[in-house]
Structures are given as C-alpha cells and as structure tokens.
C-alpha cells in the first residue's frame, strides 16, 4: 500500500468509529412532553406530562389508567407515606449498612407535588406519564436534584426515581434532567423503603433500557392507602372528581353517596333513602 493509501486509511478509521458510535448511541431520544399548568413549570421545579414512547417504556403497549382524578388532599398522605434510605456503600467484600429510612419528600415538596400532580393526572392521556423535577440547594455551588415519573396502572400507582438528591454543579446537567427526567446521571444511591400497601415491583419497570439503567420503583395500592388516610378527603375511587368538601360535612357525605350510586354499588332507591336520612338529620 502506498503512503497516501496508508494516510487515507488512517484518516478513515476514526471517521468509521465515530459513525458507528453515533448510530449506536442514537437510541436515547427524549420523548415529547407538555406543560399542564402554570405552577407546574417553575424555575426550580416542574411537573409535566411526557409521552411514554416504546423505546423508553416496554409497557406502553398497555395504556395507563389515565386520566386519574384525585384531590390535593388525597395526594398528601400518599406522598408523606413514601420513604427512602441511602444504600450502604461497602468496600470490596465488606458491605456497609443502609442508612435510616427518610421521608422521600419534604413538606414543601409534598405541598407542591400534591397540587401539581392533581392537575397533571387529571389531564394525562393513557399514553402519558407524569414526570417531575425538584431542586434544593446544598451549597452555593451545588444543587441537589430529584427527578422521576408517576403513572397509574390498574389498581396501583407507580413512582420511579430517576435521580434522588443527586448533586449537580453544571447547568447543562440540570438542563438535561429537565429535558429527560428519567435519565440517570449516576447509579441509584437511594432505594425505596416500602410501607403498608407499598411494594417493590420485581419486574422490569420498563424504563430501564440498555441506555438507561434500572431505576428504583415503588408500587402503591392507592385504593387501600387512601382508605387508610385521615378522613379529610373526598372520594377515594379512581376517576372520582376532586372533592371540595370534607367527608364529615353534609356536602361531603352527599357527594360521597352520589359517587357510590354512580359506581353502581347501591340502587337508586337505596340512594334516595339514604339521602333522605342524611337530610333529615341535618
């Protein structure tokens, strides 16, 4: 081979390599997302809807149980019930214990998520998941970011944590997580601590492809959890409209009664009799 030929060959090698890499790494496309309310999109936090694409979610062939209507008051106890713990980092063959269980969300985050998840889930389509991002300042230079996704499937509410309290110093990394909340920037340092009516699904959560490692996932049997929640909220049934009255009030009781009738749990006659009894006692 001539010297010129060798030079061409040497030049073609990196080009070929980069072309192979570019094609191979082109599978991580970010799905489209949409904003659902004004307060859902703030500079340091967001909740929005994102289309669950097939390459990012193998279960997307089965639509989610969306829209899903819950009040903010119904969300709060659920959010407070979620706990995480830091994974112990051992060295070589010596494991280290996990950290103590901690509430996954701060009170301020519970307030924000309860309001925005209510709005987002009410507008979610069966092909969409609700993604979120939260930030908190650790130091002047370091921001901790939590991102993930929620979806409802059958009788279970699912939460996937893409990143939990991950330290970030570069704006481009934050921007990446804002665009793709389920992109894990590092291995999961935290794991869920399942409580009552909560479980850790063993099956692939569908978001772990060869481009995205498996993320911690929690499944919550929301019906049971909401039944056990303090009686300050309205209807517990999936698809129930948001309630503006506490259960203990006459309005709340009537609304609850109507919901039960609409769901076919009681007949019209039973509904009328019970309604009369409530009004008589007023």
């Amino acid at each position, binding site marked *: *081979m001539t*010297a010129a030929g*060798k*030079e061409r*060959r*040497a*030049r073609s*090698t*990196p080009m*070929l*390599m*980069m072309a*192979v*890499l*570019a094609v*191979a*790494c*082109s*599978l*991580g*496309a*970010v799905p489209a997302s949409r904003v659902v309310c004004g307060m859902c999109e703030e500079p340091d936090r967001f909740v929005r809807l994102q289309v669950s694409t097939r390459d990012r979610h193998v279960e997307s062939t089965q639509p989610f149980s969306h829209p899903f209507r819950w009040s903010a008051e119904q969300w709060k106890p659920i959010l407070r019930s979620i706990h995480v713990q*830091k994974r*112990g*980092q*051992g*060295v*070589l063959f*010596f*494991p*280290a214990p996990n950290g103590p269980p901690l509430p996954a969300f701060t009170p301020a985050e519970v307030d924000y998520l309860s309001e925005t998840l209510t709005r987002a889930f009410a507008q979610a389509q069966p092909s969409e998941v609700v993604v979120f991002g939260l930030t908190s300042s650790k*130091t002047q*230079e*370091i921001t901790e970011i939590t991102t993930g996704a929620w979806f409802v499937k059958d009788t279970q509410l699912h939460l996937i944590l893409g990143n939990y309290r*991950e*330290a*970030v*110093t*570069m*704006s*481009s*990394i934050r*921007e*990446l997580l804002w*665009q*793709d909340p389920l*992109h894990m*920037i*590092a*291995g999961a*340092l935290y794991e869920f601590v399942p409580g009552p009516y909560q479980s850790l699904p063993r099956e692939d959560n569908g978001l*772990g492809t*060869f*481009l995205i*490692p*498996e993320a911690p996932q929690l499944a919550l049997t929301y019906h049971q959890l909401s039944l056990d929640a303090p009686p300050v909220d309205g209807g517990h049934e999936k698809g129930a409209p948001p309630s503006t009255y506490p259960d203990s009030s006459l309005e709340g009781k009537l609304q609850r009664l109507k919901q039960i009738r609409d769901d076919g749990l009681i007949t019209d006659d039973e509904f009328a009799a019970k309604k009369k009894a409530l009004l008589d006692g007023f």
Partner: protein
Amino acid sequence: MSNRAIRGLIVCLLALIGLFTYEISYLLPKANAIPAFARKYGVPCNVCHVPGFPKLNDFGNTFRDQGYQFGADVDLPTHENITMGFWPVSFRTTVGYQVANVRAEGQALASSGFGFTGLDILSFGILHRSIAFGLVYTPGLKEAGFGTGSSLTDNNLESAFVRLMNLERFLGGADNTYWLNMRVGKYELDVPFSEKRSPTLNTPFVMYHYTSGTIYQGGALGGLPTSAGYANANAFGIGDNQPGLELSGIVKTATTDGYLRYSLNMVTANGGSFSNDGGGFGRSAAFYGHVTQSFGGYGIVTGQRIGAFVVAGTAPTMCPSSIGGGPSGTGCVVPGTATQGQPYTRVGADASLTFDGQWNLFGAFIHAVDSSNLISSQAGGLNAAGLPNFQNAAWNGGFVALDWYPTQLPFVNSPGWLFSYRYDLIRNQRQGDPTFAKTFNDVDSHTFMARYYIHQSNRTDLALHAEYNQYKDKGVGTNGGNLYGQTTLVGLDFAY
C-alpha cells in the same frame, strides 16, 4: 481478505466490544469502589468534571484550588459520614487499539495493536482540615503500550506533595479565603490548561514539552532517515511535573464575578539540583509564575478567563570533574549533579472562552529563549559545520482548542458526549545552531477526539474514547524533507 478489510473488521469489532461492554455495565451490579472523591462525598463524577472525565468543570477546578475540601466537617476523613466505602485511592487506565505510522523521506514505519496506556494510581485528599495531599504513581509495566514497547521508562512517582491551605489566617486574614496556600513536593505546575486533565489521551500539548533542536516525537521514529538535530542541555518543559515549592491562591473578585488566581513556583527542574558540590545555587532551578483572572465564572464552563505565565530558569551544562566531566545529560553519571547553569526563559499568555455552558474555546501562546551556551556546551563548542557559531535559540508555540460537551447530542438526543479539536503549532524564530534552517523542527499538530460516557455512577467511570492525531515536523528528514505522523486510538478509558 485484504489488509485494509482486516483492519476495518478489527475496528468494527472493537466498536461492538465497546457497545457490548456498555450494555454489560448496566447488567452488572455496581462495584463497591469509586474514584475517591465521588465515593467520599457520594456525588456523581460530573459534579467536578465535564461529561467524559477527566476535564474539570468550574466547580472541580475550584475544589482543587481549595485543597480538595468544601471547608466543612464532611471533608475530614474522620467524619461520621465517611463510611468504609471511602478508600482514597483510584486507578485509571485506557485499554484499546492503536494504529500509528510515521514517514519521512519516502520511508514509513507503521505499528498497530491492542494494549493499554499504562496505569495511574492516584490518591488525593486531605490529611486534616486545610492540609491536602496528592500522590500519583505510574508504575512501569512491561506489558503496557500499544505494540510500541513497554512503559518501563515511565516508572515514576509522578506526583507527591503536601499542600497547606488557608495560610492567610496566620497573617490576620479571614479563614477559608484560600488566597495563600503553600505546596511542597512534586506536582503538575499550574499550566494554562492541565495536560493531566485533558480529555486527549495520547497527544501531548506540544508547547508544554518542546525543546529547541530536539526532533518532536523523536522517540517514536525508529530507523527513519531523520536528522539528529542538535543537543540542548535544557530539557525543561512546563508540562513536566516538577519538584518544588508553590505559593498559590484564589480570590473571588466581586467586580468581575470571577476569580483571581496566582501560582508562584520555585522548582528544581527535571529532577535537577538547586545546589550541588560543583555548582552552587540555581544550577538546575526554575521559577514559574502563572496568574489568571476570570469574568462571570471560572472560565471553563461559565465565564471567560485570561492569564499570563513566565518561566526563568537555568539548566546545567556540564558534569563536575569529580564524576568525569563533560556535557550534562548522557555524560552525567549522577543525575542532578551537573554544573554551570545557563539561562532560559519562557513567557506566555492564555485565554479561555465559554459559550452556553457547553462550549469551551481555549488556547495559549508561548515565547521561549534558550541561551546559546545551552547548545554550544553540548556540541563541544562547534556547530554542525565545525564552526564555533551559536546563538540563543528562540521559538514561539501555541495551541487553540475547542471542546464541546453538549447537553444532548443534536438530532439523536443522546447525552454524555465530549468532542474536542486542538491545533498545536511551533514556529522557530532562531535556531541555536545557525547551520539549521530557521523552520527546522517547526511543528503542526491536529487532534480530533470524541468521547462517550458509557457508564457513570457515584463509584466508577467508563468512557469510550476515539482519538486521531496527525502532525508534521518540518525539515527534519535527512534530506530536509518533512516528517509526518498519524495516530489513531480507540479504547475504553476507565477510572475505579
């Protein structure tokens, strides 16, 4: 099957191996050991690095400047949150495939093969609050190298230093301001842009190591018909780790929303001696200073930065008569015992511009002068023409580089990429031996690099690395022809 087809097949197989490794990295459980700081603080590597380590981002540079500490209790190795997982030692190497060829005067040398770049064993941290340390050991490994020989000659304690931080508090200053720190030991000078932290793996910053009269990359030329050049007693390169003492500091400047940094060093260049039995003070000494000012950030990811540096040193030319005398270098039986130091200087400037947090355009310029005595002493006082004519050697060098670390690669929306292009050049202004052409040993070097973060966790890093370099060394063939070289490296760079 032709050689070309075989070569292409090997490259494709390597790419597939890379992708396979990439997938495997997600299937395996996370290793319980990490690069030291990520493990210590429980943060991902891109807290301190731009994607595709090892280039430091703004925060990482500040963290380094402040002696590897946040100024909080969590820094201490005895802190309760420091678990067994903290083991302040990291390893780094690159495994892969390299193709290299050089040619001059119609002859060519080619080599290719699998191998690894050597091994860095690193340990950095703090011994106590405001007392930092660093160790880098690069063992010479017989099996290292990409078919071009082992790295036995690189067996080296590359860095070993202790750094006392915040000395200003003893002078009445406030604590944790970091404007007066002192480092003693062997370390990388505060060069305009760290070569150790450069994403390019096997392409040196030419101006950091260039020596007037010495053929660039001369060690890799084998039996090619190239000129021997002329000997120069000065082997100082600002890119070479040097033993010495450094006073440095970093100050946040409110008016520029940036940082003022300085580094003043007194080093025994290239393992020489400040004072010895035959010479006296300064025989192998160099003084290096670098100052930078940034605006709107640190100047690597955000903001802009300008800087200037200067070197004034002396290099030994002769060995003492007690050990045989003669020119320094190969004639010196005991390294660092040469005498009759002769002067050399380097002055330069650097700048770094950033855009959108994803682009970094940076470069540096250097003007170098070596005393004619540094050359004449090595040639027995006669030049290549047999005449006693020598002159101060002078050359200009520089580089300009563009790094791009996109949030996500356009069109394919894939994060974790780092691309880089760098152009290095050397232009001789005056040869020490005037019988050589003025343009003799002028260098042009182009480096292209792409890196992809295959895997990143709070414990380990793995990047797929592709790097291509081509260079031209002017007029160094035996008949005055140019020397051309190309190197392609494709490998997996990992830190543990």
